């Protein structure tokens, strides 16, 4: 089985990369009448500043440079947090050709200001069908504005040893979830750790409970500002969430902690699980948990009538509208989205995340395998980009503050929803 799978993947990798090469040759020769390869400068600004991603980015540039010896690739790496505000200046005067950014609504300001180039023509090429799962997240105003290079799953990471100790199994329904939690609480273990000091962690909980209660389409409509926050369906989401809060499922005083500061509760067994992105696994392993102690399950079903929708934030590459070397930039985008490259950069020794290209293969890691399986086979509702990327910036910041307040003072719900609704009306109407 395994070998066949490998053969299959290798085969498709070869096929797609050959196809990519041919396609590249065709476009290159049509772009240059004299038929010679890419040349000139290609300026890239990347936000992959952490050690492992940085090595990946530098490797990408080196490999791409080797494929196109006449092209001079200039790479600038900017601190990831700083880039969130610097991108505005960088795209303004004398812009680079290629930049890193995020999918979905986060692209909106740059698309509206005409700073990202429309690359719908790239997406029309046959190789891009392998990226279909994220096409929606890259689309604004019916056009595509960038390409994905990696994403990661969200879900519940839990202490398998604690679950075994109290005879619990992975819950698949909300009832099982609540029953599990009650057992843990009876043994003075908190069900979930969370740190809401920087607010966004609460957004993950809302994404999941809302999409499990009302479905992906409702969640997206809410994100687009088409549904009132005071709607009864939203109230149902909060009522479900409140069941956990009233039980005391979450650790106390979580508004004091960042997500990292909330980790020790799980590491030393005071809390059993953490709703998080896959990046937390590295921190949990560093904290001393072995793969025998740590496992993963998909967020359980709440409303059996709606499909699973999953948070899987996508990181992306874009071409600046002021790019000087558009042909080289497009070729670079083809390069990073090819199955072969996506397999390589998402490996456990590189980014340790999931490739977006359906023909890429994933590393031999139990969390990546489970995540890949979940996102490819069990996320029929849709892929969410996360609260702070799906909602508009202002709605997200007011919203997440409200979610944090709700988690500590659930009785304030009416006041919070009125506030969010007021904000929604101002922004969208």
């Amino acid at each position, binding site marked *: 089985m395994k070998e066949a799978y490998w053969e299959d993947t290798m085969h498709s990798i070869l096929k797609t990369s050959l196809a990519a090469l041919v396609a590249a040759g065709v476009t290159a020769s049509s772009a240059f009448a004299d038929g010679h390869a890419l040349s000139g400068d290609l300026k890239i600004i990347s936000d992959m500043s952490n050690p492992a991603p940085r090595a990946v980015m530098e490797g990408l540039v080196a490999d791409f440079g080797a494929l196109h010896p006449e092209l001079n690739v200039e790479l600038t790496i900017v601190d990831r947090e700083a880039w969130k505000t610097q991108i505005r200046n960088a795209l303004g005067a004398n812009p680079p050709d290629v930049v890193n950014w995020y999918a979905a609504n986060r692209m909106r*300001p740059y698309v*509206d200001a005409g700073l990202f180039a429309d690359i719908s023509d790239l997406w029309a090429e046959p190789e891009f069908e392998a990226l279909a799962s994220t096409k929606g997240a890259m689309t604004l105003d019916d056009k595509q504005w960038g390409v994905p290079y990696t994403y990661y799953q969200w879900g519940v990471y839990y202490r398998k040893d604690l679950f075994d100790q109290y005879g619990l199994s992975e819950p698949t329904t909300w009832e099982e979830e609540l029953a599990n939690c009650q057992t843990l609480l009876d043994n003075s273990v908190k069900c979930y750790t969370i740190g809401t*000091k920087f607010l966004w962690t609460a957004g993950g909980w809302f994404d999941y409970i809302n999409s499990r209660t009302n479905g992906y389409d409702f969640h997206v409509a809410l994100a687009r500002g088409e549904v009132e926050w005071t709607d009864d369906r939203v109230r149902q989401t909060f009522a479900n969430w409140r069941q956990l809060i009233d039980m005391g499922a979450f650790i*106390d005083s979580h508004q*004091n902690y960042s997500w990292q500061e909330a980790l020790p509760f799980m590491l030393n067994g005071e809390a059993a699980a953490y709703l998080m992105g896959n990046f937390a696994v590295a921190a949990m392993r560093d904290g001393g948990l072995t793969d025998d102690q740590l496992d993963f399950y998909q967020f359980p079903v709440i409303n059996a009538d709606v499909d699973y929708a999953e948070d899987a934030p996508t990181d992306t590459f874009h071409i600046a509208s002021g790019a000087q070397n558009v042909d080289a930039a497009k070729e670079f985008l083809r390069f990073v989205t090819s199955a072969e490259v996506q397999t390589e950069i998402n490996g456990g020794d590189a980014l340790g995340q999931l490739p977006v290209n359906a023909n890429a293969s994933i590393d031999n890691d139990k969390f990546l395998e489970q995540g890949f399986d979940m996102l490819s086979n069990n996320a029929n509702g849709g892929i969410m980009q996360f609260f702070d990327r799906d909602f508009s*910036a202002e709605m997200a*910041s007011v919203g997440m503050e409200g979610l944090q*307040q709700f988690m500590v003072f659930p009785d304030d719900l009416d006041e919070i929803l009125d506030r969010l609704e007021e904000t929604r009306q101002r922004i969208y109407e």
Partner: protein
Amino acid sequence: MSSAETNRSWYKRNEIAITPWLFLLPAMLFFAVYVIMPIGQSFWISFHEWDGLGDKTWVGTANYERLLGIGDQNIDRKFEVSFWNNLRWLVLYLLAIPAGLFIALFLNQTVFGIRLYKSLFFFPFVISQVVVGLVFSWFYLPNDGLFDVMTGWFGITITDGVLGNRNTATYGIIAAGLWPQTAYCMILYLTGLNAVDPEQVEAARLDGAKGRKMLWYVILPQLKPATFIAFVVTIIGALRSFDLISVMTNGGPFGSTRVLSFYMFEESLSEFGFRMGYGAAIAVVLFFIMLGFIVYFLWSMYQDEKGAR
């Protein structure tokens, strides 16, 4: 005579009048470019809706109406919270002045190693505000923090910790801010105490003044310049309290520790911000609050100058 007069160049003839302006010119130029013009621009931007990238849209006073709740809308809740927090900062931060005076009087003696004690007291002002914020946020941690342990001895528990409780968080940050600010005021008073006239103290002592009366009627009047400076730097410090809030609570919990300068930053420059028009409107309001104090300072300085003449 008259030929000598005309031989002198135009500059030489007007030297007295012009030289001061020449000396002032660079400062005036920089002041205009880096202070006056940005203030003007902020006013201009505050009448627009602008995301910092595209075109500005003129919205008149809409930003101010939303901020202050003019018309049929409610006052911006975040603005209201920020404003009251700013007032808390202004009032409580002034405690740094008497505290600084007290420590200065205490340290103004000659015993072995006094220089070391003085520098230890001055230490918090030297370290970065970010470090002060971090140290205090660990100090305040619920359960493990030293503060929680100490209040536990007296049977007091603050739910969710000082910084996690919306009723105490702002006061917790102000207390952290008072630590370096007290040191600053102490230094100002220590230098002031050096300038106290020993003959006056001697004369007062002969007249039987001592203790509190000596302090109030003899020492404090001579410390008036130091008090004035301490007042100015403390008021300004209170109004620009930003780094501590950013480090210790990031405006939370539930937005209860925002002040105007933090709210302005959040609206215009943070990750979820870039509503430049609204941020500028907050900046303008903050500017007028500061202007009130600045006018008072300038006026009282002017009065002093007049009195001295």
